[in-house]
């Protein structure tokens, strides 16, 4: 017998020299991180346990931050193109020269025609700043990426209830007992959703996942509904049908908190048909069933009727609820009539409706928290309906997504589960009614700022961005009859419109943080050609392209001037209340990034560079009287800028004493206060104000105190959406502002004030016998779009992406492991590796998003699997729909919001012999790498072990 030997071990080694607490930006979730520093290098990154977003957890990307911080793909200095566009040939230049070149292009056009600058930004978190810059410049052509991302979700929510999912709000994870998730693979709320799901599981709540694909969140759902893509609207309306039919709707809630009792003009001949009738103060009327008379909706003690026909000032009216009930109780929405199209058995639809009803009404939660509503009525309890929902691009990235998102919100509202315990809750600055949002502005004056913010929420045809000839004012044709409520712009149309010179030609395309020549464009191959295309004079059709990226992406190769940004650990940033803060349903919060590592390259934070460019251009707000810079850099702007008096980018530690919450003078020590506080600031909403926010007087007052709004603005949910009806009336020929003939029918059909379902456009235009299969992408949890790839650890997880094929199709085509397929859409063709997945809708194929890469990009070797077997589905998707027979190509977007309809794609699939060299198709000539290629091996941390 030997004695057991074991070495003595130091179980308390020193971890690091110092911890610097900042905000992650390996994705847009904005988790708090503790960056452990050793010898001036990052040793370990962990979640910040005190941080409101992630409470200590971190996702794979966040933990892999070290490999991004030290990635070989980091740009090193400003680049000036020396080869042809797309080749990737550059020379490194100084910042002075770079800013000189940029100002040289931008200055003259500002004086002549500011719209010749198109400034579009990607998934950055400084839109309140970049928007401000663009406004000062004076171009109408500014937006961020929301138009191709998820504007349907945002607009659907705002127009229905003054907020949507994701950053607008979240389920009450602690109290929910039934949670239904529609079409989400990952979402921006990456960690909070996972934490929430974990909480639901721990509490024994039930999760229902509605998704054609059963992976990730859907894999752990207790029930999976493998819906046919594009049919959620039908499914939801069938649930609504069942709930109405069985009387399982919260009538009290609808009366108090929604516009369901509002009286709607029912006189078909009237110019106001379908609009609410109002009293002389402009207040919507309801029918008081006790007084038997019309009264203003918010009158004290009103007892509104929910049914019946009432004459008001000679106009035939009915409560909006009646219109809703009539519509959804119809035969069209029975489970039996939708079952086949949704691919969900009618019994299952009924069962889910029954379950929603049971949990909402039989498992009612009561909190003993007295509160007072905006009418002054006191409540001694908070009543909760513990069913909650969440949804993202699975619903929104379809051409019927706006109305589907609305349908889902209305389902929540009918169940009385919005802003109540156990239901869905808003995060400040939401809730905020449509009417409190800005409207879009289009007033261009050469040499002057735009007359207001670019983006907003139109309230009727009069808010459209059309010139006197009815032509689009914006390059992306946002806010036109094609997509009237395109609240986030249409970034996916910018390059093709600019290339076509429709509505006009531009001079400079200025982009930031968007890989537009690759994975963020539809029709990637043609987009690359458009960027390279020259006119008869041999000049590029899009004359100048300025781009800011931190890394050697595909888009860099197409730029004339590259402004190299820092990494997220090397700069100041603010995640602002003016933009998309990190608030919780229970708290107001914002955060910063700060340079926890000094850059070792000649790079600059983009926002700082933008300020410097603004100073060079002499933009108002950026220069003092004498032309000198008003803000030294972005950090200075963050602390000193005021949007409204007392309100600035950061809400915390305001005022000279640093004690101001939300309001207060600029504090020159504000950033340090944030740093000392762990990189964020949080202020909790008082308990009695934490629910019923839109109607809770306590919350409204608190929000005013905190500078969220300047006056209380209680409102009711706009289940019946009048704005839509206004557009519809125009389409029916009423009013002065009229849509062009070719769009009349589309506007009339899709701008319904109550949600409808229609077939996704692509599917209704292609021959579905020829293209029988739906093709989707999903976000891999461990990758962020194209930039995951440069990360030595993450790329090992997803180095290439097979196309997942369901059993029936797999067997029908005789596929086996290692096979390849040709996949064809109305627009293009790709040849890609396939893999079997059984837990998949029988008519759907899918792949991971943005894994395929162009050779030469991201400092990878040219034979990296991302560039050989990897592929983009984008080659099959076109920004325009197939011809309709009217000779016109309409854009492949939601007709209401302009949301890119990525997931409407229809394809056919065939088995093919594996291509030579196992190279997926299409292929492109390699781009040259301005930063060379990465080293052979990585042994991170060697010096410390």
């Amino acid at each position, binding site marked *: 017998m*030997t004695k057991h030997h074991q070495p003595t071990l130091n179980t308390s080694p020193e971890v690091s020299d110092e911890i610097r607490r900042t905000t992650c930006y390996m994705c847009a979730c904005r988790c708090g991180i503790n960056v452990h520093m050793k010898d001036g290098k990052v040793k370990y990154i962990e979640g910040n346990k005190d941080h409101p977003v992630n409470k200590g957890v971190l996702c794979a990307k966040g933990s892999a931050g070290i490999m991004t911080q030290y990635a070989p793909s980091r740009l090193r200095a400003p680049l000036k193109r020396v080869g042809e566009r797309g080749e990737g040939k550059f020379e490194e230049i100084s910042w002075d020269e770079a800013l000189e070149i940029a100002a040289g292009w931008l200055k003259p056009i500002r004086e002549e025609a500011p719209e010749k600058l198109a400034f579009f930004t990607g998934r950055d978190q400084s839109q309140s700043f970049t928007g401000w810059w663009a406004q000062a410049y004076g171009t109408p052509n500014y937006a961020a990426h929301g138009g191709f991302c998820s504007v349907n979700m945002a607009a659907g929510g705002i127009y229905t209830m003054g907020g949507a999912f994701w950053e607008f709000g979240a389920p009450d994870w602690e109290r929910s007992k039934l949670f239904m998730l529609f079409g989400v693979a990952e979402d921006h709320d990456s960690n909070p959703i996972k934490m929430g799901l974990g909480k639901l599981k721990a509490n024994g709540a039930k999760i229902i996942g509605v998704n054609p694909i059963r992976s990730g969140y859907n894999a752990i759902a207790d029930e999976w509904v493998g819906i046919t893509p594009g049919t959620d609207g039908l499914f939801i309306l069938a649930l609504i049908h069942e709930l109405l039919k069985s009387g399982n709707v919260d009538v009290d809630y609808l009366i108090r908190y929604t516009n369901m009792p509002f009286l709607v003009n029912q006189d078909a001949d009237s110019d106001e048909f379908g609009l609410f009738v109002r009293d002389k103060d402009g207040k919507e009327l309801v029918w008081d069933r006790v007084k038997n008379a019309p009264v203003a909706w918010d009158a004290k003690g009103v007892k509104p009727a929910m049914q019946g026909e009432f004459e008001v000032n000679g106009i035939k009216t009915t409560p909006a609820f009646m219109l809703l009930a009539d519509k959804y109780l119809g035969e069209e929405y029975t489970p039996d009539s939708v079952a086949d199209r949704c691919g969900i058995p009618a019994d299952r639809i009924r069962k889910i409706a029954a379950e929603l009803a049971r949990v909402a009404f039989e498992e009612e939660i009561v909190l003993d928290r007295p509160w007072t509503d905006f009418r002054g009525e006191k409540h001694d309890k908070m009543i909760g309906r513990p069913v909650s929902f969440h949804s993202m691009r699975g619903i929104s990235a379809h051409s019927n997504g706006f109305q589907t998102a609305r349908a889902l919100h209305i389902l929540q509202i009918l169940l009385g589960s919005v802003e109540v315990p156990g239901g869905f809750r808003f995060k400040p600055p939401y809730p905020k009614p449509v009417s409190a949002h800005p409207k879009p502005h289009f007033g261009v004056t050469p040499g002057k700022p735009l007359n207001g913010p670019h983006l907003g929420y139109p309230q009727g045809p009069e808010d459209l961005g059309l010139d006197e000839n009815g032509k689009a004012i914006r390059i992306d044709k946002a806010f036109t009859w094609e997509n009237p409520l395109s609240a986030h712009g249409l970034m996916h149309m910018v390059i093709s419109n600019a290339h076509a010179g429709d509505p006009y030609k531009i001079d400079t395309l200025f982009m930031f943080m968007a890989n537009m020549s690759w994975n963020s464009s539809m029709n990637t191959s043609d987009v690359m050609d458009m960027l390279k295309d020259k006119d008869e004079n041999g000049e590029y059709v899009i004359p100048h392209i300025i781009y800011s990226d931190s890394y050697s992406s595909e888009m860099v190769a197409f730029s004339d001037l590259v402004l190299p940004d820092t990494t997220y650990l090397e700069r100041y940033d603010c995640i602002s209340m003016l933009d998309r803060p990190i608030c919780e349903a229970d708290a107001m919060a914002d955060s910063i990034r700060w340079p926890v590592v000094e850059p070792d390259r000649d790079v600059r934070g983009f926002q700082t560079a933008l300020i410097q460019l603004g100073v060079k251009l002499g933009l108002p707000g950026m220069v003092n009287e004498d032309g000198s810079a008003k803000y030294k850099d972005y950090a200075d702007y963050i602390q000193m800028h005021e949007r409204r008096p007392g309100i600035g980018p950061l809400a915390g530690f305001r005022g000279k004493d640093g004690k101001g919450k939300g309001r207060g003078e600029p504090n020159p020590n504000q950033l340090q206060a944030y740093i000392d506080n762990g990189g964020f600031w949080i202020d909790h909403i008082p308990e009695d104000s934490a629910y019923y926010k839109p109607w809770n007087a306590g919350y409204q007052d608190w929000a005013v105190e905190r500078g969220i709004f300047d006056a209380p603005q209680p409102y009711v949910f706009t289940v019946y959406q009048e704005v839509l009806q206004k557009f519809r009336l125009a389409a029916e020929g009423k009013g002065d502002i009229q849509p062009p003939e070719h769009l009349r029918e589309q506007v009339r059909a899709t701008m319904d004030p109550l949600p409808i379902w229609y077939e996704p456009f692509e599917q209704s235009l292609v021959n579905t016998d020829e293209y029988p299969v739906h093709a989707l992408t999903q976000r891999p949890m461990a990758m962020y779009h194209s930039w995951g790839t440069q990360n030595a650890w993450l*790329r090992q997880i997803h180095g290439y*992406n097979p196309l997942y094929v369901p059993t029936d199709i797999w067997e029908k085509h005789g596929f086996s492991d290692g096979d390849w397929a040709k996949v064809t859409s109305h627009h293009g063709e790709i040849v890609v590796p396939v893999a079997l997945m059984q837990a998949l809708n029988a008519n759907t194929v899918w792949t991971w998003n943005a894994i395929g890469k162009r050779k030469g990009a991201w400092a990878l070797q040219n034979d990296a699997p991302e560039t050989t077997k990897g592929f983009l589905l984008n080659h099959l998707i076109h920004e325009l729909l197939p011809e309709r027979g009217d000779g016109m190509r309409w854009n492949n977007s939601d007709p209401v919001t302009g949301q890119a309809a990525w997931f409407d794609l229809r394809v056919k699939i065939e088995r093919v012999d594996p291509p030579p060299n196992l190279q997926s198709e299409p292929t492109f000539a390699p781009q040259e790498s301005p930063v060379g290629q990465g080293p052979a091996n990585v042994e991170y941390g060697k010096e410390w072990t």
Partner: protein
Amino acid sequence: MHPAPSVIIFTTLSGLGFGLMMFLGLGFLDVSGWVAFVFVAIAYALAGGGLLSSLFHLGHPERFMKALRQWRSSWLSREGVLSFLTMGLFGIYALLWIFMDTRVAWLGYLAAASAVATVFATSMIYAQMKSVPRWHSFLTPVMFLMYALAGGALLSTQTYIAGLLFLLLVPVQAMIWVVGDRAFGASGSTMGTATGLGKLGKLRLLEKPHSGNNYLLQEMVYKIGRKHATKLRLFALAFGSLLPAALLVVFPASHVMMLLVILIHLTGLFAQRWLFFAEAEHVVGLYYGQR
């Protein structure tokens, strides 16, 4: 398992070397002087070469002495200790034999026994692996020992014994394959037990943890085609034992003949060992969709 050349060379050559030492130690070969030297040299070259080659399989060959420490529990350690012991004992025996022309019989027997033990220890490295069901069998030491003995007999020109052993090896090897083919199934390890999910239905791997490769896949998840394996088995059987046996029986022994038989056996032996590794499935494959 990945058929690493270093390990194949190691097991084949050292088996032959120790086999030869055994026969020499038992005094089968009635030679002396430089002829004895040649045989001894061959034995050392094979055993030592094999051991040297095994060092190539190590991440830190310079630390190989540390491997001798755990002889109480580790078969690899035992093998190391025993091979040094054998080489030492045999060395003294050989020195006396070659240079003093005295054969100390007991020392020879001791060296021979030690050589057998060494080969046995080698075989136990594999036989102990429950995680590789095909190896986890008493047949593994039987196989290793028989090949070592047959090879040793052949190298020490004991044609009769060698022929007999080769003949015996044919059915034994065949049986090892037949039994081995069933071993994985009989081990009770399935994707179901590996994941605990077997009760839920029919299991398959949906996605590997990484799209890329890893040590486990490179080292332990080697998959060889069935057709390919059958052909190689026939080849290994023919060259490793059948042909050598036939040649030894049919043709009179001569230098050329012996050399030919040795070469044929060696080729067959390499094929056999290659298969020994390549056909051995590690249960970790279950986590990677194998079986």
